[in-house]
């Protein structure tokens, strides 16, 4: 992932859209993260100035919710569900296997930012446990072998 200078003007249309709405901090942060893929400090500072909410308060919100990332993320997001049904049907082994095979750690990205491995709790498709989501594509009844094979094929 190359670090380019951030174009903070991309925030303007988002802030304009939510200007009149009460309690819009979370949607603004969500939209900003869609644009920058994570929430760098500069973005938070800029949002804070533009909407008049103290940076400390924004930081409080960002660190509270699992969805927000303060660190850059990998090109491919691998979310392994460890919800109850998936846990009972073998998710812990899948997580261990991915960590071993791809030299990843849960919750982290690899040094090349190729993958980010996330543990999520319940995507609501428990009937097809264990569930793994790779870049928004949901895979049911996953096995470690097929999943690792699929991940290796991603660039």
């Amino acid at each position, binding site marked *: 992932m190359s670090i380019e200078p951030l174009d903070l003007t991309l925030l303007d249309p988002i802030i304009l859209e939510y200007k009149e709405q009460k309690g819009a901090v979370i949607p603004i942060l969500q939209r900003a993260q869609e644009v920058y893929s994570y929430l760098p400090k500069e973005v938070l500072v800029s949002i804070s100035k533009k909407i008049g909410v103290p940076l400390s308060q924004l930081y409080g919100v960002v660190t*509270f919710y*699992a*969805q927000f990332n303060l660190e850059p993320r990998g090109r491919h997001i691998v979310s392994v569900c460890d*919800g109850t049904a*998936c846990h009972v049907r073998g998710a812990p082994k899948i997580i261990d296997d991915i960590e071993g095979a791809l030299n990843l750690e849960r919750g982290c990205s690899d040094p090349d930012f190729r993958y980010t491995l996330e543990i999520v709790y319940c995507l609501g*498709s*428990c*009937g097809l446990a264990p569930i793994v989501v790779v870049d928004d594509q*949901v895979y*049911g009844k996953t096995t470690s072998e097929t999943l690792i094979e699929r991940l290796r094929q991603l660039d």
Partner: protein
Amino acid sequence: MTVLNNAAELDQLQKAALARLEERANAKATVYIGMGTCGVAAGATQVAQAVQAEIATHNLDVEMVNVGCIGMCVKEPLVDIQLPGRPRVTYANVTPDMVPRIIDEHLVKKQFIKKWAFAQLTNGSGARVEGLKEYAEHPFYRNQVRVALRNCGMIDPESIDEYIAVDGYKGLAKVLSGMEPQDVIDEMKDSGLRGRGGAGFLTGVKWEFCMRARGYPKYVICNADEGDPGAFMDRSILEGDPHSVIEGMLIAAYAIGAPEGYVYCRAEYPLAIKRLKKAIVQANEYGFLGENILGSSFSFQLKIKEGAGAFVCGEETALIASIEGKRGEPRPRPPYPAVSGLWGKPSNVNNVKSYAITPQIMVKGADWFSSIGTPTSTGTAVFALTGKINNTGLIEVPMGITLREIIFEVGGGIPKKKQFKAVQTGGPLGGCLPAEALDTPVDFDSLTKAGATMGSGGMIVVDQDTCMVEFARYFLTFASAESCGKCVPCRIGGQRLLEVLTRITQGQGTLEDLDEIEYISQNMREGSLCALGQLTPGPVMASLRFFREEYEAHINEKFCPAGVCAGMYTYEIDADLCPGCGLCVKACTSDAITGTRKEPHVINQAKCLQCGACYQACNLGAILVKHKHELIPLEAI
């Protein structure tokens, strides 16, 4: 589309919609594909593409309808085919390469494929396909009564007309043409509906509190932050029948006098949010939302708020804080949200299922609803049935049905002839019940009395291969990670409990630890601010109560009877049961198993890594979980 001005216009619209649907059913063949999240995860998108391609190849005039989830997750992807004037025939576990044959034989040659067909849905039309079960005759559906899930998998969730055809918005029309807000509340109270989010508070009473509260504007909020792992009832309703939730919220808003409402939906449910957004647009076009609804003086606006990933936001005060754009931390109650909720105004928070049921109560009456279920828990219960069970899926059963009926009849029992061990209800804040409790009736009070909770509807079945200590530790990991950290008993207590449990699963526990668990749990229950902290010890307490011997085995014998906790068990082959088939030899990754064919095999303990591959591979249960040291005879030391 034009705005409807009164109930009569809705009637007309319904007649027209019904006529159109009937015409379609008689004139054209229809293909229904289950496109809920679970269907898509199982490959429904590829199946739909294959169907489309095949229809184009044969140049057929066929209507394709995407429906929500019918609840039979284990059979996904599901494809229903309906020939003109004929019943809907469902094909289960459809793969793209099955599609050409299904289209060719069923749509072109008009013969159903018996081998692949699962059941038929006659819809009272009289026409029946010979030699195929009806849905109602299938064990999975036989015991079900569908109220909240009535339309899921039946109608196109993206078509408001299809919802109107099945009495949609009729409850709202009835309420707006002649019922006073108090009448609506009385009807709800008479129905006995208790909040389906888990706490089971009477919905009508809750509405009344909010109606009587001073303050303006008031808010109606739908809690769709379905955070319990293993629960997906609310997602399914939002994906399969979003209008029922909107209609329920409208009725609540009329009763309490609220001009504005929010659906707080977790961001992990993108399809539910998409369908709900579409439904809101359609409802606005017909004037079910907006100003002067159905020509009355009642106006209502509805918005969606996406969650950002925090389990505690399922708690109503935390949810309200999150809508306000703050950290989703709960606050002490009272004041309850009915008095001081969103932006300090009176607010009514109900679960998705409670709202989805409401229109039916208005249309069919409180007596009809209270005739289902038990006197103190009326109506139906929706469960997401998952874990080690044959028919995983979404079910809706009358309250009062026993756990045994749910697990062994509706659920079809435990796979691979394994032993039922426990059922976890109420998610990570609920509790588990053992085999002895299988005859407990499923209702709010009986489950609580038995040591579990109703919760919002997750029901996870585990078999002999699940270690109850590790299972409890798993729930604690979840609950303590999701603690918001505001109050001390929850923040520290959860961590301490987790440490104790972890110690036990690593073989370092002591009997004093069991007292420690009870002591911490007691304090958490009494001292925590919200339900998350109060109920976090639930699964540990329940498993300690019903499976104490497993805890003691971990502590006294350093033995995990389920063969889960690393280093606390070993595998051994039972010579009497082993036929020498060699499946375990093939499965073994470390060449630890030897033996002559058709003779009992042996595991070399020095090589065995306890990976469990042989245990999973053996079809006869000949591989046993044994104590780690049992194999070394005392004389040999």
